């Protein structure tokens, strides 16, 4: 079995793809896997020798003639030569791939997926007319929920593995045995100050004060600072903040390490504190616990540390005045193994074994309670996805809706329920309209009028999609399904569109059913609480 995996995104995406490759190897021990990555990030793939062959996309060589000489034809020739050498020659000799998994979700990757001969393709693809195309359910889920920032609680590692139809397996880097110099104490803590964008990391002044506070509170601790060459200036600010502390207590490695050396140093740490998605994946692969300071526009459910017993801190305020003290308190509590009393929301990671032998990484709140309504819809949409995409009910409890006690929460719940009813009516109407189209496929005047009706239904669904947050995942799912409808005739198109409306109706019904179950449970609980009080009253009387 020959499998091609395409991952043309950044280093962290490659790290999030590798557990799927390990899962494929575990499920199909004799399979041959080719992994395509961009040349710039090939070191990441090579650090984990899971793929049988790592193929680098030479983007520099391809684009250079275009940029330097305005020679697009030369760029095209370089690209074609690369495709012919790396893929087509082997296809010519031994046949197409058995399976191509495009886990990139970028336009270029979808064209590459379509070009390389393969018997089966999953992930983002292209239809014959050039429009984007997705044919497998978990890729559709990624496109409609992850890329559209919906209420997704599944980790990307788990989603990628589901696209491949395997359980994600642990990965471990090849570590060079270069001695890092002086022996480091057991309480060595890594601090990774960089991130892909500065708004996804802390201000270097805060890193400086944070480091100083850790060193003062933990006299046995040694800090290792990690970061790329681009973080060197920022690291200098951090070093200035701790220059009153003995240099024996910290080591600045920012911008000094190549990737394979970095893993060697990471393994020396008891914890790594990081805001960065890449380190979130690398440190657990090295067997080190992560304290992820999740800031900016990232979803820690999707890109947080993967595995058991890691922590995610989600500060709302990262200013020096207000946010620093609780952040220090939370980090020190975690390092010292104490309960977290800080006001910063903290999550702990846990691997949950699912009913179909796969796993998922769950983020559990440690020191706070999630908003009941948000929690309900997050879990309800997860259950719906597992049922729709993998064909089974996941064995987690029915989502709770314990006490939507504030007026805002109650109003939001009512608005969401009303919107669910409206979506159901619209989808039923859409379904009926499509059936009318199938029945009257020869009547062009009626078809025109029915087509207009469908456009109006779509418009109303889009209004709900943008105005009711907890309905958006449902309408997004339907929209992606509808955008992927193809057909050669009016009848075929209408039949497939009817299928998307029907599925939307069923999805609404499932969410409504879960909501009803949660509310019934809530009423039962309220009755149980009231019963002893009533008894007490009788006795007093």
């Amino acid at each position, binding site marked *: 079995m020959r499998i091609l995996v395409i991952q043309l995104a950044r280093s962290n995406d490659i790290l999030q793809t590798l557990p799927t490759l390990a899962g494929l190897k575990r499920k199909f021990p004799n399979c041959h896997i080719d992994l395509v990555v961009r040349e710039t990030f090939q070191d990441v793939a090579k650090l984990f020798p899971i793929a049988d062959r790592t193929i680098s996309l030479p*983007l520099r060589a391809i*684009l250079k003639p275009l*940029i330097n000489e305005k020679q697009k034809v030369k760029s095209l020739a370089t690209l074609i030569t690369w495709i012919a050498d790396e893929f087509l020659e082997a296809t010519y000799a031994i046949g197409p791939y058995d399976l191509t998994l495009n886990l990139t979700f970028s336009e*270029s990757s979808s064209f590459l997926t379509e070009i390389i001969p393969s018997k089966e393709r999953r992930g983002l693809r292209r239809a014959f007319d050039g429009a984007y195309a997705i044919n497998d359910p978990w890729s559709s889920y990624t496109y409609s929920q992850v890329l559209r920032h919906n209420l997704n609680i599944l980790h990307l590692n788990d989603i990628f593995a589901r696209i491949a139809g395997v359980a994600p397996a642990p990965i471990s880097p090849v570590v060079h045995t270069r001695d890092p110099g002086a022996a480091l104490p057991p309480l060595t803590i890594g601090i990774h100050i960089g991130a892909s964008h500065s708004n996804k990391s802390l201000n270097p002044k805060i890193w400086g004060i944070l480091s100083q506070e850790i060193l003062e509170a933990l006299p046995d601790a040694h800090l290792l600072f990690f970061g790329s060459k681009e973080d060197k200036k920022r690291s200098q600010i951090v070093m200035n903040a701790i220059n009153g502390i003995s240099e024996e207590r910290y080591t600045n490695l920012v911008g000094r390490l190549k990737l394979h050396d970095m893993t060697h140093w990471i393994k020396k740490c008891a914890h790594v504190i990081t805001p960065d998605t890449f380190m979130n994946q690398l440190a657990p692969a090295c067997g080190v616990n992560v304290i992820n300071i999740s800031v900016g526009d990232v979803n820690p459910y999707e890109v947080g540390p993967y595995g058991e017993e890691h922590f995610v801190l989600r500060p709302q305020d990262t200013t020096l005045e207000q946010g620093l003290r609780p952040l220090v308190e939370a980090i020190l509590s975690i390092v010292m193994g104490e309960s977290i009393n800080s006001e910063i929301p903290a999550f702990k990671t846990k691997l949950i074994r699912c009913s179909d032998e796969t796993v998922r990484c769950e983020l559990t709140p440690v020191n706070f309670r999630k908003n009941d309504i948000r929690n309900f819809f997050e879990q309800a949409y997860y259950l719906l996805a597992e049922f729709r995409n993998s064909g089974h009910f996941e064995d987690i409890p029915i989502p709770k809706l314990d006490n939507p006690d504030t007026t805002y929460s109650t109003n939001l719940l009512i608005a969401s329920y009303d919107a669910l009813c409206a979506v159901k009516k619209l989808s039923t109407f859409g379904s009926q309209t499509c059936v009318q189209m199938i029945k009257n496929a020869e009547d062009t005047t009626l078809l025109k009028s029915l087509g207009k009706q469908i456009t109006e239904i779509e418009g109303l669904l889009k209004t709900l999609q943008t105005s009711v947050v907890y309905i958006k995942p449902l309408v997004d799912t339907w929209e992606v399904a509808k955008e992927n409808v193809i057909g050669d005739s009016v009848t075929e198109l209408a039949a497939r569109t009817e299928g998307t409306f029907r599925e939307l109706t069923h999805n609404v019904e499932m969410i409504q059913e879960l909501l009803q179950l949660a509310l019934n449970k809530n009423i039962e609980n309220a009755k149980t609480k009231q019963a002893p009080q009533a008894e007490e009253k009788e006795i007093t009387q």
Partner: protein
Amino acid sequence: MENQNTNQKTKIEDLLSGIDKQLLIKLLDSLISEQIPNIASENIKDTK
């Protein structure tokens, strides 16, 4: 040398015989558009 180039060209043409050429052009165009933010006038920073 000329013979070698001709052979290489024929070989690539053979290999590409079943491939939609429009897809190749679209692939290049999308690689360019995805890299535009990172393309400096003199050099290419493949860091998207």
